[in-house]
Structure formats: structure tokens, C-alpha cells
């Protein structure tokens, strides 16, 4: 196991630059999730750590050693691919032992390592099968098995669950988490699914446009998103954003509603800002206080209800556990608790 440091890392293809100076310190044994929309550079970053892409500028260190020019085979890392990339002409055991055979490990040791990994993942009855004869979930397990057999310095995961159906994804997610708790291996996990990011990560690295937007624990990103991008990306349904102006210690919405905020120190009177609030934090009031909003759409999820409201033309989503009968076209009153209101300046940065 090892720490990984990334310093001022850049990547460009010709004139197109895809990573703009990434800095990241990954501690030994940490589970890091790189999350962001497709094209944000997260996979490129992962592939650069693996050695599958050249470094244009900057430095990558694994266990303190610069690896920029090291061939993937010499970096001692393991990777789980989205497509699993199992060797079709080898059995499950053959797939899992390939790396050890390449290293000319003694036969008994290989046998023990494969047996150990297989029992951990419940693959024992499948060892002699070819990948073609496995289900999607089983292939995923074999790909994981291939990674853990070797006890590498770090595990890299490139969207490993995105080819599975929802039920299986949930199950494998839990297994990956269990495995990490068990092996304590440094892991870097790429996904575009913010639920995976929230549930798995010790720390999340949110990326957008080739730039790291925020690094922090899942709850930090949820509670105190550093900017509009992170605020919008983390959480489902997504955070509501409303344009507002700051006047007299409160945010004034376009329709004139006044919303009390925990008065932030550094906001200038009269300046424009964006107010954000998560759907699950909006309170539907029963005493008639608060702002009036029309019900435009009701989406029951079983667990709760997502309401699409219109506050004088401003769209607002609310998530509530209350199964109250809300008629389409009816009216409700809502309030925004000050402790849950996020403010962002005109560059999209968090205020306060």
C-alpha cells in the first residue's frame, strides 16, 4: 500500500488541453472517488496514474517515487475496467493469476493467492469457467479478483459498476466498501454516479472541465459545496438555484420574496448572488406562513414525493416524506430554513 501524490498535473492532446494543473495528495489506505460529468477529465486522470496516458506536465508520485515515465507494468497498481477487460481465452483462474504468472511467482503461491481471492469473492465454483460463460455480476467479481490477487500498491477503478443493473450495482457497491475496509488498500475510484461517490468515498474529488472543484469528505461536499457546480452535482434531486439580490441581511428573490439568511460577513449590500437550497431542506408549512407556490407536477417515489412547484414563475423542487394529498394546480406554502440556505457569488463561489 502506498500514498499517491499528484502535482500540477496537466494533460493535452495537441492543442486541446483536458487537465489543467491537478494537485492531489492521496493518503495511504484512503478511498478516493473522482466524480464529475463525462468529459470532465476524471478518467484521463485515472489513466495517467495507471500509466496508460502520458503526462504532459507535472508529476505523479507513488509511494514517494516519481512514476511519470514508468511503464504501467512497473507501477505495481491494479485496475478494474468498466468493460472488465477479462481475457476471453483464459479461465477465471487464468485471468486472476495472469499478473502473478508474468512475475514468475512460484506455483504454490499463485494457487494460494487465487484461492484466497476466490473465496473472498465467492468465485470458487467458477474458477475453471471462461468469461463468456459468466453473468455480468460474476465478470465484475472476477475483475475485482484479478486486482486483489496481487496485493498492489493501489487499486484503480474506472466506472466498474456502470455496466450492471441497479440491484446488482447496489450489492457490488457494498462489497467494494467491505473489501476496502478489509484490505485497507489505497483506492482511486472514478464514477459519474454521485450516490456511488457519497457511499464509497473517504474523500470525494469533484471535477469539472479538467479542474478540481472541491476535495473533501462526502458530507463536507453535501453540506458546504464550494461552488455552484459541486452544489448542483452532489445530491438528488439536484439543488434549487434562485437568482437573488442581497439587501438588508436577506436575499430578495426576483418575485420580491424575502428570504432570511445567516448573514454572511463578506457580502456587499445590493450585490447579486445565487441562492441555493436542497429540495429535501425546503419545508412545506401548514400554518400558512412562508411563500406561496403552485403545484405543477407530483412525482411519487414511494419513499417520498418530489414536488415541482412554481413560485411566481420560478421553478422550485421540493422533496418531502409527507404523503399529503397534493392536487395538481393546488397551492402550498413553503419556507427556506436559513441554516440550509447556501449563497454563491456572481462567479459561482460559495459565500460564507
Amino acid at each position: 500500500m502506498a500514498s499517491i501524490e499528484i502535482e500540477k498535473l496537466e494533460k493535452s492532446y495537441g492543442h486541446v488541453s483536458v487537465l489543467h494543473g491537478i494537485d492531489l495528495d492521496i493518503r495511504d489506505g484512503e478511498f478516493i472517488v473522482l466524480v464529475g460529468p463525462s468529459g470532465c477529465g476524471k478518467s484521463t486522470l485515472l489513466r495517467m496514474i495507471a500509466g496508460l496516458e502520458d503526462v504532459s506536465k507535472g508529476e505523479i508520485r507513488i509511494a514517494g517515487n516519481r512514476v511519470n515515465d514508468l511503464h504501467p507494468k512497473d507501477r505495481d497498481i491494479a485496475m478494474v475496467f468498466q468493460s472488465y477487460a477479462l481475457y476471453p481465452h483464459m479461465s477465471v483462474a487464468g485471468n486472476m493469476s495472469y499478473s502473478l504468472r508474468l512475475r514468475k511467482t512460484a506455483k504454490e503461491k499463485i494457487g494460494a493467492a487465487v484461492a484466497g481471492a476466490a473465496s473472498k469473492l465467492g468465485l470458487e465454483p467458477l474458477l475453471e469457467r471462461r468469461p463468456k460463460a459468466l453473468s455480468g455480476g460474476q465478470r465484475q467479481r472476477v475483475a475485482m479478483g484479478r486486482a486483489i490477487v496481487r496485493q498492489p500498491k493501489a487499486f484503480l477503478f474506472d466506472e466498474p459498476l456502470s455496466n450492471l443493473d441497479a440491484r446488482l450495482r447496489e450489492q457490488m457497491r457494498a462489497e467494494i466498501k467491505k473489501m476496502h475496509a478489509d484490505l485497507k488498500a489505497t483506492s482511486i475510484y472514478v464514477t459519474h454516479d454521485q450516490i456511488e461517490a457519497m457511499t464509497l468515498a473517504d474523500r470525494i474529488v469533484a471535477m469539472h472541465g479538467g479542474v478540481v472543484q472541491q476535495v473533501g469528505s462526502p458530507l463536507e461536499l453535501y453540506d458546504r459545496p464550494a461552488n455552484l457546480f459541486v452544489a448542483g452535482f452532489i445530491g438528488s434531486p439536484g439543488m434549487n438555484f434562485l437568482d437573488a439580490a442581497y439587501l438588508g441581511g436577506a436575499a430578495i428573490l426576483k418575485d420580491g420574496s424575502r428570504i432570511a439568511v445567516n448573514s454572511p460577513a463578506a457580502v456587499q449590500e445590493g450585490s447579486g448572488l445565487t441562492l441555493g437550497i436542497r429540495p429535501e431542506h425546503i419545508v412545506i408549512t401548514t400554518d400558512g406562513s412562508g411563500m406561496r407556490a403552485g403545484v405543477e407536477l407530483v412525482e411519487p417515489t414511494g419513499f417520498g414525493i418530489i414536488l415541482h412547484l412554481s413560485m411566481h414563475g420560478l421553478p422550485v423542487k421540493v422533496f418531502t416524506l409527507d404523503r399529503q394529498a397534493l392536487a395538481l394546480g393546488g397551492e402550498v406554502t413553503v419556507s427556506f430554513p436559513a441554516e440550509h440556505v447556501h449563497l454563491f457569488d456572481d462567479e459561482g463561489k460559495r459565500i460564507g
Partner: protein
Amino acid sequence: MKQSLLPIVAHRLAILCYIVFALFPLFWLLKVSVTPNDLLYSEGVRMWPSRTTFDHYAFVLRHSAFPTFFKNSLIVSASTAVVVTACASLSGYALSRFSFRAKYWIVALMLLTQMFPLVMLVAPIFKILSPLGLTNSLTGLVVVYSAFNVPFATFLMQSFFDGIPKDLEEAAMIDGATKFTAFRQIILPLTLPGIAATLGFVFTAAWSELLFALMLINGNDAATFPVGLLTFVSKFSVDFGQMMAAGVLALIPAGLFFLLIQRYLVQGLTAGAVKG
């Protein structure tokens, strides 16, 4: 919903016509080769002779130089197939997996070789090979045929490599393989159908080549089957039974190879054709 019968019947009939057209000449070849000489003219247009014989085959195999021709052709075609497939696997892999500056030019060069009249090379190649002692030699033919077939074989192999996900090599490299080890242990085994198709295609092409063999070979010792057959035809053009028996023999290896690999060949061309 009941489908009307007429289109189906028309479809099957049309297919039948194609089969008859494709196979009739070969059938005729076979028919004449087993017709005894005394029936050849009296039963000229009958579909099958009243009596059959293998005398023509026996004669061709025992009393002519055809076994030598056959052996020469086998050596030349097999060697060419192996050489070309080895070279084309490497270059096809380079074209499929690397992007490098000269790639465009290599592709252009290979396309060019498919365009110009090969007969143009007859004279220069003769002049180059003759001082090297490679005229009238099987080695010379193998060299020439290999070069002729490498471009197409490269494209064929490339299309097979393109069909293998890049992830597999990357996984192998992360598992600790060098790029070449990944090529050898992971990619090549998965390209076996492609290799079979290329071997078969090149074998058939080398087996059929006539003009350069005519030009570069004289005398029976190094003659390939096409040259031998053609010499035979121009010398004894009345021994139809024997000629056709020899023709059937010439057809066997190429036909066998083709039937074995045609599925893969269609598959490879499919990939190539789709790319246009």
C-alpha cells in the same frame, strides 16, 4: 399473418440459379476428368458419362511432372502465407493500435500498391532477381508473392485487431506485461480467426498466381502448378481428360482452404468493408 408463397419460391429459385451457375463449370471439370477417352466425344454433352474412370488421375500422378508442380506450389504458397501473415500481423497491429506520424503515408503507400498494374513490375523484378540467382527459384517467388500480398493482408489483419478492445492490452500491461508480451499473449490468441483468414487468403492468392510465375520460372523443376498446367495445355492440348484431372487437383488445396476459412474471411471483409 400468412406469408404468400410466391416471393419465397422466387427467392429459392433465384438462389438455385446462382448455385447452378457457380458450380456448373466445376462440375464439368470433374465430369470430363472421370470420362474415359473413348466416351469423351461420343457422349460430349451428356451430364454424366455412362462409365467413369480414374485413369486420367492415375496418369497425371504417375507419368507427368504434376506431382513436382504440386509440391512446388504447395511450398511456395505455404511459405508465402506464413511470411505474409507474420509481417501483416505486426504491421496490422501497428496501424490498429498506434497513431504515429508516418501512419498516413504507410496507408497511402499500401493503397498505391493496390492500384498500379503489377505487370509493370515484371521486367524490373526480373532484372533485379536475376543477378541474385532468384529467378527460376522458389525463394524468389516467395519473396515476390509476399510483397504483393502484404498490403491487403495488413488491412485485413488491422480490421481484426480493430475488433479487439483496447482495454484488454491495457489490463495486461497493468497486470505486468510489456506491450509486446500483451500483443503475443493476449491479442494474437484472440486474433486466431483473423490469422486463419489471412493465411487462407494469401495461400489461395499465391496458389493462383500465374504471370510472375511464367516470367520468373522456366523449366519444370521450379514450375508451379499454374505454369505446369499452362505448359501442359499448350503442348498436349488434346488430352482433355488429363488436363482436367490436373485442374481438379489444382482446385483441391485452394478450395479446401477456402471452405475452411470462408466464414472468417467474410467476417474480416465485413469489418473492412464497413469501414470503407
